[in-house]
């Protein structure tokens, strides 16, 4: 067979094209993924011992699920493990119908007995978010009884301080609400496979959850490393020891410092934030001079330039001009309250008063708040107040708060979405406790009216009245509206917020071969 010139050109062309194609394929980076996502977290998850003390974030949202959830945008409690519910006895009794076919990560079915077991853990401990009692009506129906008829009964069932439904096999002796937590078993997207106290926890996907939702897990392991110090956590992210930093935002501390977010973003890390109904404030010791005087509380409010405070954090947070809660809080926008920066007015008030040294205390473990306190101190000095700032170790700070040995302190109101309602109770309603912020006859009455109202339209109006009463009495001096933040390496994808919490069921970590 003779090779013609045309055949030669044709075969040579095919050969060269094939060679080039193969070469190009070889040059292309093959995208691969890591099996493991490592989270840096401030607190131990407390997965042994007292089951009521499980830490508030990761196990509660990665391992456990709740009967209901709270959607701030609609101010509605929405179904989760419970399909629907009936309110009885004016709201003192709620009967939940459970979804069928929900499996715990050990393959056993979630039913009314598991729900009763879970909430009995809180009942026997007289926990602050415990119901009065829980009754099993049938395998998929469970009734909760409460002492009070108020909307907080729903809030308690999804609050971050409470529990999600866990298997009775989680404790020893099995099913005993007084038992010891030995292996947390939930219905959520992950299951616990290893736990070393104060060091790390290893989680793996719960196949029953993924089968139920029709999703595919993209990681094989989720490791949570405990790194208590905030600067050390940031260094762990920078060094590659962890892939993601998340906040433990339940109580105003243990989160990625907001004053470092810009530097982290500039250095290539991804910063995800979500607004939450949470406000940092200056809280007054309003039971003694000089801040038992409403005029003095207004003087502080007028003296604070909130824009400057937001600048400390490169405006990752919003200045709190438009109310004591951010506008997305139910009824806040309608309340139409506005805090002003009015130096002359503040000076006029202060000049007419005989005020001595003001003790302003701040917890030194919160670097953000130490910065804010220094700025606020200067702003108050500018209107003639003699403010002594005391930066205190956390334990000493708490002792000073308990004993009432302060005039001003940096504190917070509100919280993540699911904590918003309970914090109305914990900050503004009796009984008197160190964590209360402001109570007066009028404010307390208005706050009580909010939490007693089951109808959300009427409740919204009551929120407006409560905000106005609190504003008129200058019960707090709001500073800035907080966010919840996730900081992740550039190769981390798929982390997303649900109800203020970061979720990891669709997360993955890119790696290049």
């Amino acid at each position: 067979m003779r090779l013609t010139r045309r055949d030669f050109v044709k075969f040579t062309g095919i050969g060269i094209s094939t060679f080039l194609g193969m070469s190009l394929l070889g040059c292309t980076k093959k995208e691969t993924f890591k099996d493991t996502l490592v989270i840096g977290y401030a607190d131990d998850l407390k997965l042994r011992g007292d089951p009521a003390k499980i830490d508030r974030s990761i196990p509660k949202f990665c391992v456990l699920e709740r009967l209901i959830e709270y959607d701030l945008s609609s101010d509605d409690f929405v179904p989760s493990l419970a399909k629907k519910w009936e309110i009885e006895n004016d709201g003192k009794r709620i009967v939940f119908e459970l979804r069928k076919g929900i499996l715990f990560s050990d393959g056993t079915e979630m039913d009314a007995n598991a729900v009763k077991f879970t909430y009995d853990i809180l009942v026997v401990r007289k926990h602050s978010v415990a119901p009065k009692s829980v009754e099993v009506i049938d395998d998929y129906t469970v009734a909760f009884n409460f002492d009070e008829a108020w909307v907080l009964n729903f809030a308690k069932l999804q609050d971050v301080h409470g529990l999600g439904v866990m298997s009775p096999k989680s404790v020893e002796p099995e099913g005993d609400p007084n038992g010891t937590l030995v292996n947390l078993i939930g219905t959520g997207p992950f299951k616990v496979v290893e736990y070393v106290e104060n060091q790390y926890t290893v989680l793996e996907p719960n196949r029953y959850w993924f089968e139920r939702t029709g999703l595919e897990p993209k990681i094989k392991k989720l490791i949570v490393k405990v790194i208590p110090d905030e600067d050390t956590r940031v260094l762990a992210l920078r060094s590659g020891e962890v892939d993601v930093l998340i906040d433990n935002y339940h109580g105003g501390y243990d989160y990625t410092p907001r004053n470092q977010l810009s530097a982290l973003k500039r250095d290539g890390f991804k910063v995800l934030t979500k607004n939450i109904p949470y406000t940092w404030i200056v809280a007054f010791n309003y039971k003694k001079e000089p801040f038992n005087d409403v005029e003095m509380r207004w003087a502080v409010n007028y003296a604070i330039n909130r824009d400057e405070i937001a600048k400390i954090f490169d405006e990752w947070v919003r200045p709190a001009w438009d109310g004591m809660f951010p506008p997305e809080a139910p009824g806040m926008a309608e309340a139409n309250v506005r805090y002003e920066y009015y130096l002359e007015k503040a000076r006029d008030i202060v000049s007419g008063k005989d005020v001595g040294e003001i003790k302003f205390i701040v917890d030194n473990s919160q670097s953000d708040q130490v910065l804010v306190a220094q700025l606020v101190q200067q702003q108050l000095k500018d209107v003639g107040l003699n403010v002594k700032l005391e930066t205190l170790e956390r334990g000493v700070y708490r002792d000073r708060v308990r004993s009432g040995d302060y005039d001003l302190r940096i504190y917070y109101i509100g919280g993540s979405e699911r904590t918003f309602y309970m914090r109305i109770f914990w900050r503004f309603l009796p009984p008197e406790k160190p964590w209360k912020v402001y109570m007066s006859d009028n404010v307390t009455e208005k706050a009580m009216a909010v939490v007693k109202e089951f109808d959300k339209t009427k409740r919204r109006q009551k929120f407006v009245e409560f905000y106005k009463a609190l504003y008129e009495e200058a019960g707090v001096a709001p500073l800035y509206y907080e966010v919840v933040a996730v900081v992740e390496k550039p190769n981390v994808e798929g982390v997303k917020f649900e109800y203020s919490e970061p979720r990891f069921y669709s997360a993955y970590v890119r790696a290049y071969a």
Partner: protein
Amino acid sequence: MEFAFASEVFRSRIFKNNLCTIGFGIILFIAMLGLLAPVIADDPYKTNLAERLKPPSLEHPFGTDQLGRDLFSRVVHGARTSLFVAMTISLISMAIGCLIGAVSGYFGGIIDDIIGRIIDVFLAIPELVFNIALVGIFCVAYGVSTWNVILAVVITNWVSYARITRGIVLSLKEKEFVLCAKAIGARDSYILLRHVIPNAIGPIIVLATLNMGNVIMTIASLGFLGLGIQPPTPEWGQILNSGKNYITTAPWITFFPGLFIALSVLGFNLLGEGLRDVLEKRTLEY
């Protein structure tokens, strides 16, 4: 006579010694900055967010920090804090340490054994770790304050004075002038205060000078760890700590307090070394 002798030593020896002169010059420079801080610097607490994280300029020679405060003002006011705290610690430690060391060396016997073992215990624990632990305890018990920091450092710092003084007194108590004083019936307290301690003062001054540098480092270390003097009071270690999160974007926040810590430690070490040369020569001559 003694005064005349001392001034002669100052003129003829100390200022002819290069180490002494340089060290003294550095310390004098920092001390003058600290003393004149209210005149030459602005209010170290004054915030101005519009001037936040500005690099060094004519208006702000050391730049500004994360609250827009003038760093020059904070650093020179920090010199007052650091030098005051370091001098207070050194003086108290010296007084306690010298007294205990002199008593231990002079009386000997069981007193010396007990004090010696106590000194051994203190020396067995790394000083900074001990300081951190003590400040931590005081923080929890009483809150952080300057006096708690001073107390915590004094508790560990007297030991070196006691050890040195004891050694010197052990040799001095066998000298003829001490034996003569005993022979004519002088009381022990008189001999200690009038004859023994004055003759031990040279090495103690050297130790105190060198120790000042260590104390400044200790205070700065505690401040850096968040255990020392607390914000908003300007203190070098604490300013350094506040700047560590901005080291890539605003390195001047860490550079200038770091420079002043280094300079002051260098100054005291040079002066101490120089004094050692001068005073040891004097001891040899007499």
